[in-house]
């Protein structure tokens, strides 16, 4: 029998985290990511790990801060409103340079919103969310298998850069089922030591995990040192996929679930001889500017499709830098762009029926539905 298992996205990410050496998980229930907590509650004990359901997301992420500071390989997951509650501690974690993995199975917002899938936390994930100059490494898987493969990368990068890494999924990625093949469990004894951790100062000078710098000069230096680290990450950790970059003239730009929809539309249109391609950012921060350089000479235009009112499209515009028209199509609140509406929007763009360079939101009763 094959090694494949049929997994729900949430369960798969949890199992992948365990195989990537995660032994500590702190969480608080919120739909649509509860299967992660439930899976961890069941499985972590079997591998000598610890699961704690905290009293709130605020507390859970602070447990992560403590556990990461003490040297544990630690993960937390939540969905949009819960991630908002965690922003304070995420800022502390980034400031104190602690490694951890944060999963956001994004749902519709703002506020309590709804439990259906969304990508409206892109700004929060990639531009901050908490206070201060800091960056999360943000990865947006489009398949469950990719989510599993990125999990090991996420933990490895978190350790290497001593920085929190976010896996930004959406409810659809969390709830759907696909077959996956899991990597072999990591040998925990081979993980690099963490001499900076608060493990008790027997035989060495004491360690301090902190983000406090009251001297402006010191804080300035600290922030520029962090920025230097982020520069290295920008240089080395850009991840993306280009489909049909060799001949396409029109490009979808989409990540996660929406990239799957755009891919289906792309395939259909290509069968009709229309030269459509796709740029799929996998690292949402650092954003893959270089992907656009590779196709800019031939591209006639880019259609960014998101489950938001237009967030990643701003990064697309920065990358394209006015050289080509950038269009946008979005649905929000759990409404998922349908293949038909995406196709219609692309055709309008190709026919020049969409005002170029301006936001083109799907207005009430809009033709795109």
């Amino acid at each position, binding site marked *: 029998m094959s090694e494949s298992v049929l997994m*729900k996205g949430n369960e798969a990410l949890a199992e992948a985290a365990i195989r990537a050496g995660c032994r500590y998980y702190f969480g608080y229930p919120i739909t649509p990511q509860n299967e992660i907590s439930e*899976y961890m509650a069941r499985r972590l004990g079997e591998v000598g790990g610890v699961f704690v359901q905290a009293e709130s997301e605020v507390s859970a992420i602070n447990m992560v801060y403590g556990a990461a500071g003490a040297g544990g390989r630690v993960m937390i997951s939540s969905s949009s409103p819960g991630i908002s509650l965690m922003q304070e501690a995420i800022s502390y974690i980034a400031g104190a340079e602690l490694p951890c993995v944060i999963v956001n199975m994004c749902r519709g917002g703002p506020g309590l919103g709804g439990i259906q899938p969304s990508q409206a936390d892109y700004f929060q994930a990639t531009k901050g969310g908490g206070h201060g100059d800091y960056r999360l490494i943000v990865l947006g898987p489009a398949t469950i298998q990719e989510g599993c493969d990125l999990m090991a990368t996420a933990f490895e990068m978190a350790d290497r850069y001593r920085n929190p890494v976010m896996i930004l999924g959406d409810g659809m990625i969390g*709830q759907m089922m696909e*077959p996956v093949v899991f990597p072999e469990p990591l040998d925990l004894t081979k993980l690099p030591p963490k001499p900076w951790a608060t493990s008790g100062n027997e035989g060495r000078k004491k360690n301090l995990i902190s983000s406090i710098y009251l001297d402006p000069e010191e804080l300035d230096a600290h922030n520029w040192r962090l920025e230097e680290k982020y520069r290295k990450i920008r240089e080395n950790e850009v991840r993306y996929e280009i489909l049909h970059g060799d001949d396409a003239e029109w490009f979808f730009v989409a990540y996660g*679930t929406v990239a*799957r929809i755009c891919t289906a539309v792309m395939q259909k249109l290509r069968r009709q001889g229309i030269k459509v391609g796709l740029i799929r950012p996998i690292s949402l921060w650092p954003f893959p500017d270089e992907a656009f350089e590779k196709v800019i000479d031939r591209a006639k235009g880019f259609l960014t499709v998101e489950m938001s009112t237009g967030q990643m499209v701003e990064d697309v515009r920065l990358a394209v830098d006015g050289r080509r028209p950038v269009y946008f199509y979005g649905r929000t609140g759990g409404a998922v762009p*349908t293949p038909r509406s995406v196709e219609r929007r692309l055709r309008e763009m190709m026919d020049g029926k969409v005002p170029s360079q301006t936001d083109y939101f799907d207005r009430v009763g809009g033709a795109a539905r």
Partner: protein
Amino acid sequence: MSQVTVFYGLYGSGKSEISINYALSLARQGRAVTVVDLDAVTPYFRVRDVREKLLEQGVKVVAPKESVRHADLPVLPEGIRRVLMHGEGDVVVDVGGDPTGARVLGGLRDALRPGARGLFVVNAMRPFSRTLDQAEEAVRRVTSAAGLPPSGLVSNTHLGDLTQMEHILYGLEFANSLGSRLGIPVVMVGVPAHLRSEVEKTAESLQGVTPLYLERYLLKPWETEE
């Protein structure tokens, strides 16, 4: 004679697709069928999401009303007890996964018509039911939470789009072994529609177990034509 059939099992074993397809197969035989969406624990991919398609094909749907369809709440359908007790024709009940989901039925146990049968859906490609020990434990936990002892198994071993004949056959063997341990028969085997001709070519391959050919109804957004 009309009957109440309850499908229960672990998360992701394929209960909803089985329920939908089973209800449709009964409808195609000209029977009056009601399918009950009793899943109070799964936020996406539920029977209520294809209510219209079922109605079009003559299957009644009892599910939480539209205004709370997307609510993050365990909402029970209105009139649920009446349907379980006095519903006309055949009633197919799709129960939420795991003991958590099965508990909902546990609370309605006394409303079930006599003769209601509980069919446990098992997918040997899913975590927590990959070994016979795990699956036996799962049957025990889910059916006791539901308050309805299992009268049979539904073999639904599959890998989504990657499902091959070998998975079906392996799953059937797995379900047979599980059935012998539990002393209950395997009454149905789920077969993805694309394997239909292959199964029909070698009719004996399913060892006499009735195949339920499965069209997929709970589609991902990129799998639809709309």
